[in-house]
């Protein structure tokens, strides 16, 4: 098995990830004004909100593709502050999270299988045989074993995204960050990709998902966060957000989305 299980020992019901008062700006544009969230092990947390509200930026701050200016991060027993972040903290965040991008971002000169193997070999220093075995297992899981030797250019968007998910899962990250994984896909491809995500949820994979697929969010999430204009406006169970929302901005957003 290559899923996070060694965690159990020291987590003991505590939060897996806790982020407090995170702030990030691009120049004078304060994109994240004050974000605090927490994620427990095995939880699926979804982030919804209008475009431009800072959802992608927030996910990218978690693995330091963007540098937050302020805030404290506590992740699986490691605590640090954004103000005094060290190189090793960034390395730790990246090695223990994985990301699935809207545009897939597969390595285009590597085959589907090589895309999955690269991190196993170069980051986790697994043997060729073990990397190959893990990659084959995952290709079967995402239904692409017959595409193992295909390059991204020869795969459909949906297939590419399934490979990207396999690449993320392969490293046994403690959390996977999904940034609108189906937004760039043709409608007929969306179902298969959601199916694959669902499969890994059932295996207990912890995730944070940014998505506009409201039905999927409702069904899959343990917790839903509504973000607007750099703030967390409201959070709760899917029911609390979708049926019993107390915030007007949430209700307006959901009404707009539903009218589509």
């Amino acid at each position: 098995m290559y899923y996070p299980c060694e965690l159990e020992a020291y987590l003991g019901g505590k939060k897996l990830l806790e982020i407090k008062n995170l702030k990030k700006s691009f120049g004078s544009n304060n994109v994240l004004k004050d974000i605090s969230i927490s994620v427990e092990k095995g939880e699926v947390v979804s982030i919804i909100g209008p475009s431009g509200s800072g959802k992608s930026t927030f996910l990218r701050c978690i693995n330091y593709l963007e540098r937050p200016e302020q805030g404290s991060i506590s992740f699986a027993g490691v605590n640090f502050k954004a103000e005094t972040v060290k190189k090793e903290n960034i390395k730790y965040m990246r090695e223990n999270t994985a990301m699935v991008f809207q545009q897939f971002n597969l390595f285009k000169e590597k085959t589907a299988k090589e895309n999955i193997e690269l991190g196993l070999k170069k980051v986790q220093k697994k043997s060729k045989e073990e990397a190959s075995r893990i990659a084959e297992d995952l290709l079967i899981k995402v239904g692409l074993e017959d595409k193992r030797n295909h390059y991204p250019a020869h795969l459909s968007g949906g297939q590419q995204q399934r490979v990207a998910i396999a690449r993320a899962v392969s490293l046994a990250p403690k959390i996977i960050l999904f940034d609108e994984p189906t937004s760039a896909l043709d409608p007929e491809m969306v179902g298969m990709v959601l199916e694959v995500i669902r499969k890994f949820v059932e295996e207990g994979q912890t995730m944070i998902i940014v998505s506009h697929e409201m039905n999927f969010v409702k069904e899959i999430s343990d917790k839903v966060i509504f973000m607007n204009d750099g703030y967390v406006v409201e959070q709760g169970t899917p029911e609390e957000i979708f049926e019993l929302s107390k915030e007007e901005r949430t209700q307006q957003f959901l009404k707009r989305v539903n009218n589509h």
Partner: protein
Amino acid sequence: MLNLFDVSTIFEGIPEILKYLPISMEIVIISAFFSLLLGFGLALVKIHNIPVLRMMASIYVSYMRGTPLLVQLYISYYGIPILLEYVNYHFDTDYSISTMPKIIIVLIAFSLNESAYASETIRAAIQSVDKGQIEAALSIGMSYPKAFIHIVMPEALIVAIPSLGNSFISLLKGTSLAFVCAVVEMTAASKLIASRNLRHFEMYIALSIIYWVLTFVFSKIFIYLEKRLKRSERPLEEIAA
């Protein structure tokens, strides 16, 4: 019959001239190697926007591309001995100017000149690699240098090969200027042979045929290389095999 043009001397001349092919190739290959190293360094300076170095690199590239190679060769030919004298004087060393092989001057001049062109090619190729792939590599915990080696370099190389190939071929043709530094490569050899047999026209025809065949062969090699490296465009059967 008038004997103004003698085809057979062309064919006799070719093997004579080819004896100097190794010198020409030595100049091309060694200069190409050092120009790649230096060009890569210059490209990194530009890409990472290193304050003072960046401006120096820009001036250097602009100068090297904005002045004739022939003039640069003369500058090296007269400048390097002067430089050595200064070095000997200030550092109490004893580099001999008269015994230094002249080919070194040529190699330095060509490497410096080529590196300016190579740096632009390499910079553009590196920047052509889609940033999303680098982010994907970082997001799975790869360090930036590792991502650069495993993802950026292979893709940038594919983009750079046609242009580097062209530079290589210009360099090959440019070696014909090395005679101004008293290095006997193919062009200088042709001149010498012609001054003996007085068949100047035939010798230069022979020489031109050699250059032509060489550039043809090398352009094919670069096309082949590009195809080989571009794995993602090879047919599936070949990849699976």
